[in-house]
C-alpha cells in the first residue's frame, strides 16, 4: 500500500515534470477515441433507425381473384405457423378500396372510371426485427409466391437491402477502426512511456542498486500511462458529447423529424471511453517498460 501511494505521488510529480509530452499524448488518445466514438454512435443510431422502421415493416401478399374462404383460411394458417410473423392482417377487396379512397382523399374521382373494384384481396404480414434480413426475406417471399392462391408478394426490398448493407458496413468499419485506434492508443502511450523510461534510465539504475523491486520501479510509469489514457478517454468523450449536441441541434433546425430519433450513449456506457483509454494505455506502458533486469 505504501509502495502504491509513493508510486502514485511519483507518477503525479512526473506528469507535471513532463507536462507537454503528456498533454500531447492525452490529446492524441482523445482524438482517437472521438473518431471511434463518432463511428460507434452513427452505427448505434442506424441500428436504432432500422429497429424503429422494422415496427412498420410488412410483406403484402396479394391473393388471386375469387379465392374461396377455405383457401384463404389455409393461407392464414400457413402464415400463423411462421415464427417470423408477429401480426397477420387480412384486407378484403372492399377494405383495400376504402383504404385507397382515404389515401386519395379529394381525388377519389380518379377511381370512378373503374366499372368494378380492381384491387385484389391481400394479407399484410408484420415480421419480427430479427427476421429483417434481406436474404431471409427474399427466400420467404419466394416460398410464399409458390403457394396456391397467391398472385404476388411485395415488400420494400431495395430499402431493406440498402439499410442493412449500410448498417453492416458501418459495423465492419467501426470494428476495423476500433482495432486500429486501440492499437494507436497503445502505441501513443508506448512511445511516451518509452521516452520517459530512457530519460530516467539513470534514475532507474540507481533505484535497482538501492534495492528497489521491479514493482517499485514499474508502478509509477504504469500509473502515468494509466492516468494519461483515462484523461484521454474523458476528454475524448467530452469532445464527442459536444460534437453530438452541436450536430443534433443543427440537424433539428433543418429536419425537425430527427428529434427524438437520434440518441447519445446511455449513461451506463459513459465509463467505457476512459476505461478503454486506460486499458490500452496500460498495455502500451507495460510493453514500453519491458523486462527489468538486475
Amino acid at each position: 500500500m505504501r509502495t502504491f501511494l509513493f508510486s502514485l505521488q511519483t507518477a503525479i510529480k512526473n506528469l507535471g515534470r513532463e507536462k507537454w509530452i503528456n498533454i500531447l499524448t492525452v490529446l492524441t488518445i482523445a482524438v482517437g477515441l472521438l473518431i471511434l466514438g463518432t463511428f460507434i454512435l452513427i452505427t448505434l443510431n442506424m441500428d436504432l433507425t432500422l429497429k424503429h422502421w422494422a415496427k412498420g415493416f410488412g410483406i403484402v401478399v396479394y391473393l388471386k381473384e375469387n379465392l374461396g374462404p377455405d383457401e384463404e383460411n389455409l393461407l392464414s394458417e400457413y402464415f400463423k405457423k411462421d415464427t417470423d410473423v408477429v401480426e397477420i392482417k387480412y384486407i378484403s377487396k372492399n377494405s383495400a378500396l376504402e383504404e385507397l379512397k382515404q389515401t386519395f382523399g379529394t381525388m377519389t374521382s380518379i377511381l370512378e372510371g373503374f366499372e368494378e373494384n380492381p384491387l385484389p384481396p391481400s394479407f399484410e404480414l408484420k415480421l419480427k426485427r430479427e427476421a429483417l434480413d434481406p436474404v431471409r426475406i427474399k427466400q420467404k417471399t419466394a416460398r410464399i409466391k409458390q403457394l396456391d392462391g397467391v398472385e404476388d408478394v411485395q415488400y420494400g426490398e431495395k430499402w431493406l437491402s440498402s439499410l442493412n448493407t449500410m448498417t453492416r458496413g458501418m459495423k465492419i468499419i467501426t470494428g476495423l477502426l476500433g482495432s486500429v485506434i486501440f492499437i494507436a492508443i497503445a502505441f501513443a502511450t508506448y512511445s511516451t512511456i518509452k521516452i520517459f523510461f530512457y530519460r530516467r534510465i539513470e534514475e532507474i539504475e540507481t533505484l535497482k542498486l538501492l534495492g528497489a523491486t521491479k514493482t517499485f520501479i514499474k508502478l509509477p510509469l504504469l500509473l502515468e500511462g494509466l492516468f494519461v489514457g483515462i484523461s484521454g478517454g474523458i476528454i475524448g468523450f467530452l469532445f464527442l458529447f459536444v460534437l453530438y449536441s452541436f450536430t443534433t441541434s443543427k440537424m433539428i433546425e433543418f429536419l425537425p423529424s430527427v428529434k427524438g430519433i437520434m440518441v447519445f450513449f446511455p449513461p451506463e456506457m459513459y465509463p467505457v471511453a476512459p476505461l478503454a483509454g486506460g486499458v490500452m494505455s496500460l498495455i502500451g506502458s507495460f510493453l514500453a517498460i519491458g523486462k527489468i533486469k538486475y
Partner: protein
Amino acid sequence: MIQLSEVSKYYDNEIALKDITFSIEKGELAYVTGPSGAGKTTLLKLIYRAERPDEGRISVAGWNVGELKQSTIPYLRRHVGVVFQDFRLLFNMSVLDNIALVLRIHGFHPREIKEDVYEVLKDVGLKHKAHDFPQHLSGGEQQRVVIARAMVSKPTVLLADEPTGNLDPDTAAIITKLFKDINARGTTVLIATHHSELFSGTGRRVIHLKNGEFVEETTG
C-alpha cells in the same frame, strides 16, 4: 560475513578478476587496494550483485550471491549499503528525498522515514542541508550524503568504492572517521581505495590486487 572462494570474472575474455579468495568477518573493517584496473570496483560489484561471477562462489550475509534469482537480488541489496564512486545521487530530489528513497524502497512509514533521515544527516553533519539539492553541494558534502544514504537503512554490510577519490585531505579525514564510526556500531565495512594514506596506520587488513589477481594481504 563476506566470503569469496576462487572467484573469477571476465569481460570479453579479458580477465577482470582471477581466482580471488578471501573473507571478511562480521563487524570487520577492511580495505581492498591496488592501482587503477586492479579489479577493485569489479570486486565490489560482484559482492552487491551488479555483476555475476563467471567462476567461484560469493557469500554475503548467508546469501549465495552468484546463484540469486532476479527477483531476490533487490533483497540482497537491502542488506548491503553502497557508497558509489560516481555517487549516483538523483539531482531532481533534495538531499532529504535522496536519502529517504532508500527507506521508501524498504517500505518504511513516512513518519519513521523523516526521523531516520534527520538522524543520519546529523551523523554526517548535514542536517542543515536537508532541503538543498545535490548539485548545490560541494564534492565532500555530496560524498557525505551518499554515505548517509548507504547507512540510513542500517545495512549489515557497507561497501565504499573510492570514497575519498577527489576530496581534499581534510574532507577525506572526515569521511574516514565516518566509516570508523559506522564500523564501531557493528557494521561490516569494506573500502576499495588506491589511496594508501587511507589505511596506513589503521591496523586493519588490506587486500592487495593487481591486474585482477590477488597479490598479498597486509595490515595497514
